[in-house]
């Protein structure tokens, strides 16, 4: 569905992405994991065309995404920090996105109902708390029934109830055979969703393998423990 070949991106002296090649088939749920500043968000943004890579190319359904924009109608993106026009109300933002997307077919308003948006619709974006903004971002990402969902730190800032609602929603979408790409620091909540794990460090892709293989190799069931194990091994190999 999405394939990247030799993607590199430099910000000044910092190598944000270093020659990354990866292919994501449809129907998978990929966890993109790595320490802060390892290039996860930059990589996601290059898939979305928000960051233009210095070299390499990204194919979406076999088509080069450079200078194209239509492919984005198949993607639902939930940013790490949702930033919206400050003096629009939540209702206006939702209406505007519907208007801009020009979506044919039914809208998915599961999250709008589950998050109880009714009381929020008339509130201006600038008055919302971080968590409520995240709810708006989540609702927008799922609203247009996209084939690909890209979720950057989806549960950061959400309360446990909202977090659980979102997680259930992700599971349901995954069962529909959608490609889901998640980055998260809170690894424990990814355990039952993830099928593939991609680990990044300093802009490089350290590995990309199925979760069950990772569980087998490390002998750990939990994603967080498996990753911790690998990080320790890496440190040992650095010392040796």
């Amino acid at each position, binding site marked *: 569905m999405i394939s990247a070949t030799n993607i590199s991106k430099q910000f000044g002296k910092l190598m944000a992405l270093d020659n990354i090649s990866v292919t994501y088939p449809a129907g998978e749920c990929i966890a993109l994991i790595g320490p802060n500043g390892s290039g996860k968000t930059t990589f996601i943004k290059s898939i979305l065309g928000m960051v*233009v890579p210095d070299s390499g190319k990204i194919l979406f359904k076999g088509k080069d995404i450079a200078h194209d924009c239509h492919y*984005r109608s198949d993607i639902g993106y939930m940013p790490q920090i949702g930033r919206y026009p400050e003096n629009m109300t939540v209702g206006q933002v939702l209406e*505007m996105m519907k208007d*801009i997307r020009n979506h044919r077919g039914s809208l998915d308003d599961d999250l709008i109902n589950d998050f109880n948006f009714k009381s929020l619709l008339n509130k201006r974006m600038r008055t919302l708390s971080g968590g409520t903004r995240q709810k708006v971002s989540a609702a927008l990402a799922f609203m247009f029934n996209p084939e690909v969902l890209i979720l950057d730190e989806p549960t950061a800032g959400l309360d446990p109830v909202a977090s659980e609602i979102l997680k259930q929603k992700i599971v349901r979408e995954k069962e529909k055979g959608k490609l889901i790409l998640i980055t998260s620091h809170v690894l424990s909540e990814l355990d039952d969703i993830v099928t593939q794990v991609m680990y990044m460090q300093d802009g490089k892709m350290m590995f990309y393998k199925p979760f069950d293989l990772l569980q087998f190799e490390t002998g750990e069931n939990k994603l967080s423990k498996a990753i911790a194990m690998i990080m320790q091994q890496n440190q040992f190999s650095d010392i040796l």
Partner: protein
Amino acid sequence: MKKIIKYIITDILRNKIILSYTAFLLAISFTIFSLEDNSTKGLLSLLNIVLIIVPLISIIFSTIYIYNSAEFIELLVSQPLQRKKIWLGLFTGLAGSFTIAFLIGAGIPIILFEATAVGFMILAVGILLSIIFVAIAMFAAVKIRDKAKGIGVTILLWLYFSLLFDGIVLFLLFQFSDYPIEKPMIAVSMLNPIDIGRILILLKMDVSALMGYTGAVFKDFFGTTTGMVTSFLILALWMICPLLISLRKFDRKDL
């Protein structure tokens, strides 16, 4: 693109600066015209406002507006929309609002009190200057990431175009006063849209005699149809060049 323009214009209207700008222009033009018994004098006062206030408000408001819409732009870029259309939509929204504001604020009094060739020239120059300075603001805002620095640079640009440039021209005039520099002066004046506007209006007012031999040379050039067409073409270039460069930059910008 129409949708983007629609959202930008509603947003600009919601923030009341453009409305107060229109009201300010209306108030000042009416005052000027009713204070002076001779409406040509009124036009001359209006000229200074057009040449100083209009570029200032357009460039500063547009720059701040673009920086403040960073979130909105980011949101749009992640949607199935072409970047070019987003940027052009932003430009059209800003330039359109300023054109309408000027048309109402200065256009109505001019048509009421002084519907002459000079009046319409002021109107045309005012509209062109509004659009040109929106384009320059877009260029500065896409080039500079930091908001404070960007706004500082646009203030300096405005200072340059409305004050410093004239200082440099005067300096050149004095330094080279022994040489026949009237004709090169025409070329130099093309480097500043405000100057082109000022010369176009002053020559329409027939006060060029006051400018001595330079005035005569200017009249020779700007007074003819070719000269007029050339200067309007140059003004159009002042509009298109910053816009196109900013468009190219925005197309490759990382958000």
